[in-house]
C-alpha cells in the first residue's frame, strides 16, 4: 500500500467515525423518568421539542423498579437522563447515589424539583452543592409576578434574570420565564456551578402559608434554575419548577409591568436542555503535539533554551459537526512548581492553536498546561510532563572570547620556557680568565 492509498483509507475511516458520531458529542438516547405518566401529555410540547432535535425518548414511571432496563453490567443504556419526578424517592429503581454515578460516568442529567420534593431529589442537589429549600416552599416575588392569574401569594414568578451567556440560554430569549416552584441556594464559590435563572431582588423562597421566621435564600441569590458542569464535562441542570417545562407555561402570556404575548419558557427550556445535552458549548481538544521547532517528533527530553513548538486543535460542536473553535483566551503555561511561562496560544481560524517559545534556562520536569475554563463551555484541561535537561558536556560553547587572554598566557609561557631553556642550556658561561 503506498502512502496515497493509506491517506485515502484513513480519510475514509475518519469520515466513517465522524459519521457515527455526528449525532451529538454524548448521544441522543434520553430516558425520562416521571412521577406520573400523564406528564407525557401535559409536557408534550417540551418532549416534542426534543424529538425535533433528533432525540429518542423513553418514559418510565418512577415508582416501578426497572433498573435493569437502564443500567446493566456497568453499562448505561441512555446518554441523557431527565428526572421529572420531584416526589419520587427512587427513580425506576435508581437511588440518588446511582443517578450521580451516571453523571460521574459521563451522562447528562436534568433534575427537576417542585414545591413538594422528595429527599432523593434533595440529596442529588446537596451532593452537587445545590441546596433546595424545605418542602412546601415557593419562590415568591411581589413585584415580578404574572398578573394574568389572580393568585394572591404571587408564587407564579416571571423572571428575566437569566445568565447573560448565549451559549447557555441562546440569543432569541426576549420575554420573561415563568416559574412556579421551590428556590435553591447554590454554593457560589464552586467553580463548577452557576445559576442559569435567578430571582429578582424582591424574590424569596418560603412557604406562602406560614409566617416567616428565617429565609433559606432570598433576593438575587435565589436560584431558580442552576447548572453544573462536572469535572468530566457531564452537565447537570437543576430546576426548582416542573411547571416551567409544561405546555400551559409554554403558551401562557405574561403580564408583569409590561405585557408579553407569550412567555420565554419554550425558548429557555429548549436552550438549556440543548446545552445540558451538550449540543452547545461542547469543546474537544485533539492532536496535542509538542516538539522542537523544525522537527515533527517529540524528543524524550528537551534541553534548556530549546525552541519548542506546542500545538493543540480545539473544536466546538455546532449541533451537527465539530467546527473550529475560535477564542483568544486560550493560554499555555509552562510550569515547574511555578509557571515560568504563561502565553496566549495563537489560533489559525482552523481550530489549531499553536505557539513557538524558548524554554527557560532552568532544568527540571516541566508541565505543558492548557486550562480553558469559560462559563458555558466544556472544560479543557491538558497537562503533559516533559523533562528539560541542562546542556550536555558537548553542548557548551567551546572557545569563548573571554578565555582568549588565558590561551595567550598559556602559549606565551610555553614559548617563554622554551626560549629560556634554550638560552640557559646553550649559552656558555664566560670562563674565568686564567691569569
Amino acid at each position, binding site marked *: 500500500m503506498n502512502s496515497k492509498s493509506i491517506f485515502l483509507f484513513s480519510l475514509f475511516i475518519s469520515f466513517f467515525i465522524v459519521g457515527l458520531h455526528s449525532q451529538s458529542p454524548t448521544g441522543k438516547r434520553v430516558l425520562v423518568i416521571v412521577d406520573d405518566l400523564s406528564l407525557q401529555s401535559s409536557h408534550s410540547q417540551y418532549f416534542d421539542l426534543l424529538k425535533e432535535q433528533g432525540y429518542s425518548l423513553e418514559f418510565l414511571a418512577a415508582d416501578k423498579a426497572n433498573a435493569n432496563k437502564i443500567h446493566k453490567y456497568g453499562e448505561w443504556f441512555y446518554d441523557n437522563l431527565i428526572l421529572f419526578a420531584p416526589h419520587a424517592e427512587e427513580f425506576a429503581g435508581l437511588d440518588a447515589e446511582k443517578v450521580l454515578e451516571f453523571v460521574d460516568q459521563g451522562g447528562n442529567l436534568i433534575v427537576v424539583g417542585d414545591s413538594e420534593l422528595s429527599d432523593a431529589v434533595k440529596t442529588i442537589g446537596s451532593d452537587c452543592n445545590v441546596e433546595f429549600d424545605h418542602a412546601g416552599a415557593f419562590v415568591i416575588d411581589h413585584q415580578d409576578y404574572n398578573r394574568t392569574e389572580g393568585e394572591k401569594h404571587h408564587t407564579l414568578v416571571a423572571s428575566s434574570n437569566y445568565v447573560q451567556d448565549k451559549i447557555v440560554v441562546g440569543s432569541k430569549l426576549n420575554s420573561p420565564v415563568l416559574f412556579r416552584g421551590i428556590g435553591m441556594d447554590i454554593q457560589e464559590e464552586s*467553580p463548577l456551578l452557576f445559576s442559569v435563572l435567578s430571582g429578582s431582588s424582591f424574590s424569596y423562597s418560603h412557604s406562602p402559608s406560614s409566617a416567616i421566621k428565617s429565609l433559606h435564600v432570598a433576593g438575587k441569590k435565589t436560584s431558580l434554575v442552576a447548572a453544573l458542569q462536572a469535572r468530566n464535562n457531564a452537565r447537570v441542570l437543576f430546576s426548582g419548577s416542573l411547571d416551567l417545562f409544561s405546555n400551559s407555561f409554554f403558551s401562557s402570556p405574561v403580564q408583569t409591568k409590561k405585557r408579553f404575548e407569550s412567555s420565554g419558557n419554550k425558548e429557555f427550556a429548549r436552550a438549556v436542555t440543548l446545552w445540558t445535552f451538550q449540543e452547545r458549548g461542547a469543546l474537544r481538544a485533539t492532536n496535542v503535539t509538542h516538539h522542537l521547532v523544525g522537527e515533527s517528533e517529540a524528543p524524550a527530553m528537551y534541553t534548556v533554551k530549546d525552541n519548542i513548538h506546542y500545538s493543540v486543535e480545539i473544536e466546538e460542536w455546532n449541533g451537527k459537526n465539530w467546527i473550529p473553535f475560535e477564542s483568544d483566551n486560550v493560554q499555555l503555561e509552562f510550569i515547574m512548581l511555578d509557571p515560568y511561562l504563561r502565553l496566549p496560544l495563537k489560533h489559525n481560524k482552523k481550530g489549531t492553536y499553536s505557539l513557538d517559545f524558548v524554554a527557560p534556562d532552568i*532544568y527540571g520536569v516541566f508541565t505543558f498546561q492548557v486550562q480553558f475554563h469559560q462559563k458555558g463551555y466544556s472544560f479543557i484541561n491538558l497537562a503533559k510532563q516533559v523533562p528539560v535537561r541542562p546542556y550536555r558536556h558537548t553542548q557548551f560553547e567551546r572557545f569563548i572570547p573571554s578565555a582568549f587572554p588565558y590561551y595567550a598566557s598559556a602559549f606565551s609561557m610555553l614559548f617563554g620556557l622554551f626560549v629560556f631553556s634554550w638560552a640557559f642550556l646553550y649559552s656558555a658561561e664566560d670562563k674565568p680568565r686564567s691569569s
Partner: protein
Amino acid sequence: MDTITSVFSSERKQELLLRILILALIYVIAFSTRLYSVLRYESVIHEFDPYFNFRTTQYLVNEGFYNFLNWFDEASWYPLGRIVGGTVYPGLMMTAAAVYWVLNFFNITINIRNVCVLLAPWFASNTAMITYFLSKEVKNTGTGLLAAALIAIVPGYVSRSVAGSYDNEGIAIFTLLLTYAMWIKSVKTGSLFWSGLATLAYFYMVSAWGGYIFIINLIPLYVFVLLVSGRYSSRLYIAYCTFYTIGTLLSMQITFVGFQAVQSSEHMAAFGMFGLLQIYAFLNWVKAHLSAESYNRFFTVGIASLLAFLAVSFTAATATGYISPWTGRFYTLLDPTYAKENIPIIASVSEHQPTTWASFFFDLHILVILFPAGLYFCFRDIKDVSDLRDDNRTDAKIFIICYGITSVYFAGVMVRLMLVLAPVSCVIGAIAISSTLETYLKPLKQNTTDRKNKESYPLQAEVSYAVVAALACLLVFYTFHCSWVTSEAYSSPSIVLAANQHDGSRLIFDDFREAYRWIDMNTAENARVMSWWDYGYQISAMGNRTILVDNNTWNNSHIAQVGKAMASTEENAIKIMRSLHVDYVLILFGGLTGYASDDINKFLWMVRIAGSTDPNIKEEQYFANGEFRIDAGGSPIMLNSLMYKMCFWRFGDLYTEHNRPPGWDRVRNVEIGNKDFTLDHIEEVYTTQHWLVRIYKVKDLPNHSA
C-alpha cells in the same frame, strides 16, 4: 626436593615466604569476615545510599560513560530533577563498572549486582595491603604486617565495608591510605615519580569521596608542621609542589568538584601552604646570597607587605563571593553544635551526631588504649634532621602523628568519621605493639647463657615473657571482639529485618522489598511517590518510580515542603500534594512490629525541617506539655496530622498485644489517642504483611462536588 629446600634455605628467603603467606592470609580474612550478611541473608545491597550507587552503576554499565556523565535524572526530586553526572563522586561506580567489564571480558559472567555487593570487601583486602606498605614505610615490615592484620578486622572500618554496603567509603578508605602511602614515600624520597603517584591516588580519592577534603587539609598542615619544626627539605618542596599543582588540576576534572578546588574555603589552606612554601624556598635562596643584616631588613619589609597583600586579597575575594563560604557540614566539623542550631537537615542524620565513648571502644577495642602508646613511640623515635641513621622515617612518623591527632578530633565530632580514625589507629596501634615487642623480645632472642649475664634488671626474661603473653592475649581478645561486632552489629542489611522469636527461631521481615515490588508492579510508570527522604533512593532503585525527595539532601526547601505536607492536616496537605502532582504516599510504620526507626519517631525532624522554611509550623504545637505523645494526651495538632492519620489508619481496631487495648503501639508502648477519624482525600492502597510499609493513593478531585 633439593631445589625447593635450597630456595628457602637462606633466612631472608624464609622470611619473605612467611611474609607473603601472612599477607595472603590477611587478604583472605579481610574479605571473608565481611561476608556474614551474604551468608545470613542473601547477596543484596544494604541500607539507603548504596541503592542509589547501585542504580547509577547500572545506568553506567548500560548506557556508557558519557551518558552517565550527562545523566539528567527526571525521576528524582520531582519536579526539579537531578543532574546525576554532575552531583556524584563517580569513582565508586566507575570502579564497579570497570571490574564488571574486565571480568566479563574474560568471560567470567558475574552480574553487576554481585560486583557491587562484593566490591567493598575486596577493597578492604586491598586496604590491608596498602596499610602494610604504609606502616612499613613508617616503621618496619613487622609493624606493617601487624597493622595489616589489625585493619583487616577493625570494626570501625568493617561497619562501612561489609558485603552489600556499596558506598563511597568502601573504596575511599583504600584510596585515602593509598594517597597517604604514596605521599609518605614521596616525602621520604623526594622523587617526582612517587609524588606523581600520590597525585594520581589523590585523583582517585577525589573521584570517590567528599572526604578528600581531609587529605587536602591534612597534607598542608603536615607541611606546615615540618616547616615550623625546621624540617624543611627539598624533598618536601618537590613532593608538595607536585602534589598540589597536579592534584588540584586533576581534582578539577571531577564535575562535582570543578572550580571548588580553587574557590571554596576548604581548599584555601592548601593554596596558602603552596604560596608559603614558595616564599620559604625563596627566602632560603635570598639568605644564601645576602649578609645577615641586609637579609633581616629584607625579611621584615617583604613579609609585612606580603601579609598585608594577602589579607586584603582574601577579604576581597570572600566579600565578592569568588571564594565561597564554608558549607554547613564543614562548620559542623569545627563546631559540633553548629548544625543543631542552624541546619536541622544535617542534624537529623544520625551519622552526623557526635561520637560516644562507648562507640569508640566498640569500634576500636584495644586500639583505644594502644593509640596513645603508639603516639608516644612515634614521638620517642623522632630523630634530628642531621641524623643519618634516620632513613627519613621521622618525616613519616610526624605525618602519622598529624593524621592520628586530627582524625581523633574529627571522629569525636561526627560518628561517621570514625571511619577515618580506624585505619590510622591500626597503624599507630601496630607501632605500639611492635615497639613493645621489640623491647621485650630482644632479651628472649639471645640464648639462655648470654641472657643471664646481660639482664639489665632482675627477672627480665620472666617479665618479658609476661608482657609478650599479655600482648598476645590482647590481640586474641581483639580478634574475638571484632568478629563478634562484625557478626552482630554490622552485618544486617537493614532492607531485610530479622527478629528472634521466643522459641529461638528467626522471623524475617521482608516488608520493604514487598512494598517496593508492589509499587513497581501496580502503579503507573510515571506515578510520583511521596515519602520522607530516607526512602527516596530505595523507592527509585527498587520501586522504579519518580520520587519527590531522596537521600541526596541538596534542596532543603523541597524537603521542607514534604515535611510540611506530612505535618499538616489532611485538608492542607492535599493542596501541597496536588501542587506537587503526588500520586502515592509511602510511609514506614513500626507500631505493629516494634520497629523503632519508623516515620512517627522521625516525625519531629519533619516538623523541624518544615518549620525551618515555614514559620507557621512550630515544633511546640506538636508537643503536649513539652512531651511528644501520640496517646490521648497528645497535642490535637499532632493527632490530626496527615502522618499520624496515615500511620494509624485502621490501627485502632487492631489487637497487637495480650491484655492490651486495641490500637496499642508497640514502639511507643501507648494506646493511640485518636482512633476515630476518616481519610477524605487519600485512600489506603497497600499495607505490607507486618504493616511496616503503608502506601496511600491521592484521590482525584471529586467529579461533581467542589
